[in-house]
């Protein structure tokens, strides 16, 4: 039986969908050949960059971290210079929001030193300091992770949603109904998602997708049923999908158990960064890294302890990205 001709609405809807996907910069990658070999057709790329000698005297060496970030960005975008990579993410004149993850304080939050380097790179790519906003849910969380609150208009701002506020109108998708942070909706043109690599005692893991819980007023409502489908549904809220352009997961330290709080006994130095446009693919890879570490330590997989992050699959079903390992190109640099 021949397929029914498409209606005008369906054709227009499809076109709009393509435009939206392009604007989001998410889903399948079109960034050229992989430095490490052939890229599967339509695959999502995840760069896993590591530097065993990242630390000197126990603390992170900023120059080596900068070099690691540059290497990761160049590999992901297949370019020769870091600035070329950043110009594929942001344009001069845009306001760029850096969504950090600071709930756990020092030890299991986005490292300020990494954020500082990203801010330098953004400025090299033409973003003015005053057009960079580092944000998370609460000022207290930011401070406990080592950031200093800054509200001045002539420099990089660091502020929590408790200062910037939320929209008055609900945004909804599926199970999600939330007021979105103005940092996302009104201030940022583009958002760079800066999660951390860690276990989560309720929803399994917390990586790129879940970090956007920090953009809604009611994250406490989204933890039942191991976070499924809530994590995926929240990410589907239009401003999130439209504005988050890149995820750089701070995997300098990983935590394979006891999250989201910082538990040093379950933390290990991964000395790495994960970079992807596709948050689903990043989460799939990050989850695997955590599972590998759990296995290495003789711990049960998350599925066996009732914390398998099924919402990653749900996010893939929503079309946010891919969780199929055969369609994810993991690029180790």
């Amino acid at each position, binding site marked *: 039986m021949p397929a029914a001709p498409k209606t005008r609405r369906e054709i227009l809807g499809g076109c709009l969908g393509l435009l939206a996907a392009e604007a989001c910069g998410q889903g399948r990658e079109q960034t050229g050949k992989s430095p490490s070999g052939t890229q599967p057709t339509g695959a999502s790329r995840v760069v896993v960059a590591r530097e065993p000698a990242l630390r000197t005297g126990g603390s992170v060496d900023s120059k080596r971290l900068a070099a690691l970030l540059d290497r990761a960005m160049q590999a992901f975008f297949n370019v020769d210079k870091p600035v070329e990579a950043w110009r594929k993410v942001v344009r001069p*004149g*845009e*306001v760029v929001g850096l969504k950090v993850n600071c*709930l*756990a*304080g020092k030890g299991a939050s986005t490292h300020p030193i990494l954020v500082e380097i990203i801010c330098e790179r953004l400025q090299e790519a033409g973003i003015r300091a*005053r*057009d960079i906003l580092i944000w998370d849910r*609460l*000022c*207290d969380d930011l401070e406990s992770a080592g950031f200093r*609150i800054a*509200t*001045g*208009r002539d420099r990089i701002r660091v*502020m929590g949603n*408790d*200062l*910037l*506020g*939320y929209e008055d109108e*609900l945004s*909804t998708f599926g199970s999600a*109904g939330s*007021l979105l942070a103005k940092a996302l909706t*009104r*201030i*940022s*043109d583009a958002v760079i998602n800066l999660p951390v690599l860690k276990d989560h*005692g*309720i929803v399994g893991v917390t990586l790129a997708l879940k970090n956007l819980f920090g953009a809604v*007023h*009611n994250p*406490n*409502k989204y*933890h*039942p049923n191991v976070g499924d489908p809530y994590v995926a549904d929240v990410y589907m809220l239009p401003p999130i999908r439209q504005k988050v352009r890149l995820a750089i997961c701070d995997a300098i330290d990983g935590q394979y158990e*006891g*999250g*989201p*709080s910082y*538990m040093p006994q379950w933390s290990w130095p991964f000395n790495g960064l994960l970079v992807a446009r596709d948050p689903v693919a990043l989460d799939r890879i990050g989850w695997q890294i955590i599972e590998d570490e759990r296995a290495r330590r003789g711990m049960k997989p998350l599925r066996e302890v009732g914390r398998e992050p099924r919402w990653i699959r749900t996010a893939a079903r929503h079309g946010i990205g891919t969780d199929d390992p055969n369609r994810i190109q993991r690029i180790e640099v």
Partner: protein
Amino acid sequence: MGEALDRRTFLKAASTLPCMRALAADDARYVAEARFWEKLPHRKIKCKLCPRECVIDDRERGYCGVRENRGGVYYTLVHSRVCAANVDPIEKKPFFHVLPGTLSFSIATAGCNVNCKMCQNWDISQVRPEQVRSIYMPPREVAALARQNRCATVAYTYTEPVIFYEFMVDSAEAVRAAGVRNVVVTGGYITTEPLKELCKRVDAVKVDLKAFTEKFYREVVNGELKPVLQTLVTLRKLGMWTEIVYLVIPTLNDSDQEFRQLARWVKSELGPEVPLHFTRFHPQYLLKNLPPTPVKTLERAKAIADAEGLHYVYVGNVPGHPGENTFCPKCRRVLIEREGFFVRGMHLKQGRCPGCRHPIPGIWG
């Protein structure tokens, strides 16, 4: 280019930063150690206040959003933190068998332990306390304001009083000491031990029974039916005056079968004298796609519950409907005439029908 902070917002943020942050979650006036929780390893805690039994990491909050783990100790963030305070007719709660025609000093804090898609107060129930404007109103002031406003009762209502349990209990003691009664308007999603303690201090409880299927509770309420039914049974055993409200939502909980099962359960487990209010739904929050409940549906629900033998079945949110009135179950005489939230005629004599002297259950004086 994205919108930068406007001047007003910027100035506000810059100039009031310390002040705003003092008003945020850790304002010491509102923080008190919570009750009904247990310590778990690694600074985690388990909340035992409601059947959800949230396991909460350090620096995290429970599902309600108002109780926080701080270093392995659990705190309420909403003690004396009132985000809504009004003097309402008690019929608005609704209580139809508690001091008809009197006023009730009605208060709430932010937060809720469920997330009903039809919530009419979602802007205070589904937010964290620091996200709404609140005032400091300690228990003694609750009692004083109730008396000052000539209220016969204080109602803990609007959001979900279970989540501000400590404040409610402390206030109830102060209110009772001031000679004013306490009434609670709740979804009934609470564990048995705190419920029993609460009942020592309050006079009446209205339970929102949101449906009679687990499916509805799971999909629309984000909760469970069974613990709510357990709450109703416990209230009955404790002799607490209880009324039930059932919000009838088109297509979701409005079948004859569900009405009948509900009425039979109420009659067999609680008795025929428990008032049952079928109230009209209006599109709200996450259920804006459904129409308001047809009045005929409410009349059908009432007819089924009447036929099953319940004595006091009401129609609500339909001002002027005869189903708002109280009738004598024995001689069918009109005992209390109502229109909306107002009593138009009170014919009860000392809690009895003036015609046949049949006793009418409730709190009448």
